[in-house]
């Protein structure tokens, strides 16, 4: 019997692949700007350090950075768990733990950036 199968799927893989690369580029660009701001300001004490983060564009860049970081970390950790953790229950448990940690981290990072 001949089997002519068309490969179909939900394209989760492609989406993750794209998220990983786009977030990497966003992080690279925001870090470059932050590094330049850091070298320009050279904050040596609390007031200067806090002043750096109270600028509007730094907040927006930091927020973009952290949201990219946590989505990037999700794709990476998911890939690692899919490759090395084979028992379904353990894998799902670990994936859930990673998701919870990342969501908590994203909320925490947002509150840090917005309060500063």
């Amino acid at each position: 019997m001949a089997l002519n199968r068309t490969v179909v799927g939900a394209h989760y893989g492609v989406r993750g692949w794209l998220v990983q690369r786009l977030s990497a580029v966003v992080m690279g660009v925001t870090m470059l700007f932050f590094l330049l701001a850091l070298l320009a300001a050279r904050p040596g004490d609390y007031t200067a350090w806090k002043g750096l983060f109270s600028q509007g564009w730094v907040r927006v860049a930091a927020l973009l950075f952290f949201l990219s970081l946590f989505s990037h970390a999700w794709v990476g950790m998911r890939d690692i768990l899919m490759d090395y953790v084979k028992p379904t229950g353990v894998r799902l448990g670990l994936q859930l733990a990673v998701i919870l940690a990342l969501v908590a981290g994203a909320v925490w990072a947002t509150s840090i950036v917005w309060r500063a």
Partner: protein
Amino acid sequence: MTDIAVKKKRPVWFNLNLLNLPLAARVSILHRVSGALLFVLAFWLLYLLDGSLASAERYDSVRQIVAHPFAKLVLLVVLWAFLHHFFAGIRYLLLDLHVGIQREKAKSTSIAVFVVSLALTVLLGGWLLWR
């Protein structure tokens, strides 16, 4: 018949020796290791950032924390993990764009990732942490 007999006698060679991995494969596995390390240590870094922006007192205590020799060692690991992940990541983005996919190029960019990330770890680590 004879084919099957020959096949059955073939030794199965499971080479688990990491030393035989090609350079590009070592960049790859260390990309994973450094990524996982950064995931774990990101929460500690977030804690430090939180403290450094909370108040002048907590800013001072964060400075004391990162001045501790053990914290410096952890920060050096963070620095290496970041630099390796960063430069290996740029290499993968370029490979996705079909830049440097030839065997020789891929090998030389693997060497470049190791050289640049390790050199910058030593230089930046020395300058930022043990100045």
